């Protein structure tokens, strides 16, 4: 585990997480959540959990983002907070 890369990606994960809940647009929140999931996948690849990283890349960053975008498409992008 390379600690510089680990720290950098952990910072990006926190930033993406804060961005995903702060942005005032649900489509933007869905995209930022996809970025968050992908950063999480990189973090697991760094930690040597390659099987978990594969699953997260396909299921977390792929399917979850598609679910969120489908839900936003069926409802509304508007949000107050």
């Amino acid at each position, binding site marked *: 585990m390379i600690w510089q890369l680990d720290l950098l990606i952990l910072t990006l994960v926190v930033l993406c997480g804060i961005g995903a809940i702060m942005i005032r647009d649900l489509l933007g929140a869905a995209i930022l959540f996809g970025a968050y999931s992908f950063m*999480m996948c990189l973090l697991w690849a760094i930690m040597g*959990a390659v*099987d*978990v990283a594969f*699953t997260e890349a396909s299921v977390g960053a792929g399917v*979850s983002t598609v679910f969120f975008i489908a839900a936003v498409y069926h409802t509304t992008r508007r*949000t107050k*907070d």
Partner: protein
Amino acid sequence: MEAVLNLIIEKYNYWIYITLMMIGLYAMIAKNNLVKKIVGMNIFQTAVILFYVSTGVKKGATIPIIEHGHDVAHQAVRAADYINPLPHVLMLTAIVVSVATLGVALAIAIKVYHRYQTLEEDEILEQIREL
């Protein structure tokens, strides 16, 4: 003082997991929009999974695939050379469960939207009170 500082620096990854967990908890409790609450729930879940996976990491170890797999009977397998794969396997299940809960939660959010024409919690509660 120095001991406390060392604790913070050595365990920086654990502090960031706690931060992520609290971001998720804040979103679930304080946010007004249902989809934001669901995003918060997912952030909380991934933070817990991240904590469990990080407990399996060892210094100087490689990924949990046995070297010389074909003639493994002649050589002893040293567990210290491999990252602990048990948390990985458990968390693989947790990721699949988290996607299932996400699907159900979003389906319920879509149903709620079709009934009340809004995703905001306070507007939904107002409409329920008026009925």
